[in-house]
């Protein structure tokens, strides 16, 4: 074994015995060897240590001394067995570096597992909603989950699962399972509420979105979706005076949203539709014009323009 590049002197000022061994075997470089030689010459302790290391055998022991050494517990079969057990156990023991590495790996696994679990519990809700909305747009209102404005296919009543497009069913199932595990998460509840809206299960959508709104009353996205659900329910009930409070509450929610965030183009577009339903066309047109200024998505700009033409042909 080549001598290791390490400091020759230990804290007590003497060389390590492994350096003395390398010195005795002539394996140190000349400069280091000279240093060790000088030290050993002046140090009685290292002189005797060197002698122990370089001595050829045990010939200088008396019979009594040899008997004492050979009768040590570790020299006897039972003692050897116990010692072997400890020595073999070292195979699985971690050194300090391995312990630190294991600790880091452990923390990484825990954090990774936590992240993975969170990922597993939280499907990409917006993506699910956007896909479902694009595949089937049962109302003119916009959803905060996104999606492109396809042709509106009005559904007056909730459909059975078998009637719904696969994308909507996927969103309903995935979000329903996730909400069952985390029923107090307002974002997830809002996503599930939107999925129920797409399934045109309006009472269920309102119930879910109301819960989300209670949990997070200042969330503009949730309020906007609840406003959509209330407006749709109001329209479904063929908006007589009895159902006007639903539409008014929808308007109030959207007013609040735009009060807090005037650039919310989804809320502004939806408010325009609510105002239109209430017969307040000029206000609806003003919202649509503003919405047209704020909107960047060309598909939605086209939709806003179309809505605007409906009001002001």
């Amino acid at each position, binding site marked *: 074994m080549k001598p290791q590049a390490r400091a020759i002197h230990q804290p*007590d000022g003497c060389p390590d015995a492994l350096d003395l061994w390398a010195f005795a075997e002539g394996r*140190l470089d000349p400069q280091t060897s000279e240093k060790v030689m000088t030290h050993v*010459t002046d140090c009685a302790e290292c002189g005797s240590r060197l*002698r122990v*290391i370089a001595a050829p055998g045990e010939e200088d022991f008396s019979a009594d001394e040899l008997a004492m050494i050979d009768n040590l517990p570790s020299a006897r079969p039972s003692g050897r067995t116990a010692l*072997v057990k400890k020595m073999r156990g070292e195979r699985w023991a971690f050194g300090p570096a391995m312990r630190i590495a294991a600790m880091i790996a452990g923390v990484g696994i825990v954090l990774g597992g936590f992240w993975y679990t969170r990922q597993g519990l939280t499907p990409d809700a917006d993506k699910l909603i956007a896909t479902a909305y694009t595949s089937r747009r049962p109302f003119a209102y916009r959803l905060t989950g996104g999606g492109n404005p396809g042709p509106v296919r009005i559904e007056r009543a909730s459909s059975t699962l078998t009637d719904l497009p696969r994308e909507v069913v996927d969103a309903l199932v995935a979000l329903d399972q996730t909400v069952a595990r985390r029923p107090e998460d307002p974002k997830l509840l809002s996503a599930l509420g939107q999925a129920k809206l797409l399934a045109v299960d309006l009472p269920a959508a309102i119930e879910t979105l109301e819960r989300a709104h209670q949990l997070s009353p200042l969330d503009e996205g949730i309020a906007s979706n609840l406003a959509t659900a209330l407006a749709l329910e109001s329209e479904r009930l063929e908006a007589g005076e009895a159902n006007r409070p639903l539409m008014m509450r929808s308007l109030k929610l959207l007013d609040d949203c735009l009060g807090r965030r005037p650039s919310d183009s989804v809320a502004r577009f939806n408010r325009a539709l609510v105002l239109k339903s209430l017969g307040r066309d000029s206000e609806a047109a003003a919202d649509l014009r503003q919405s047209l200024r704020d909107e960047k998505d060309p598909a939605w700009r086209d939709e806003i323009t179309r809505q605007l033409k409906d009001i002001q042909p």
Partner: protein
Amino acid sequence: VNVIVYSLPVDFSALSITALLKSCLDHNHTEAWDEFIRRFHRTIAGSIYKILRTYGPCDPALLEDLVQDVFLRLCADRYRSLREFQANDEASFYGFLKATAVNAARDHFRRVHSVKRRGEASAEPIDLIRNNSGDANESERAYHDSITLQRIDERLRSGEAVDAERNRFIFWLHYRDGYSASEIARLHPVGLTAKGVEAVLRRLMEDVKGGGLSAGGRGQTSG
């Protein structure tokens, strides 16, 4: 293949050190480790014993503790020191074991001294007790010996010979540490045979005597 090999009886006592180490490290075989302890126990225990006896009567319990400490040191960090060891010859491995044993003994005394410095022990060094109990004549003789050796050392230091440092090293190993000429010759940095070491010692003694100094008669040259 390993199952077949190890189902056959293996005489570990007949293995070379390299083969035995391979059996221990690669296969972690119980019988191989047992043979490892059996084969090297005396070397390790003997080395520790030699250090312990310089401090006074040897306590077998302490010796046993340190022996076990050495075996476990060799296995520490998943046998790193044993895995990194590359023997040129078998004697080299014995030297490595002795050095590890010496380190264990030295670390023990370093710990003991550290505890004493903190005032947690009241044990008195055995050398101090000896000096106190010795008679005045013996102390006086030791004092004169040390003065003589000091003068010899000064003379050796002032020498201009190319090998002055080596000669001083040989002189001290012989007169202070009790090495024989053949033992000194085994140290590779000395680069001399036993006869060569004897010649150096003889010349040094003549030089010292010529300078009117006496070494005090400690140690003997032998080959």
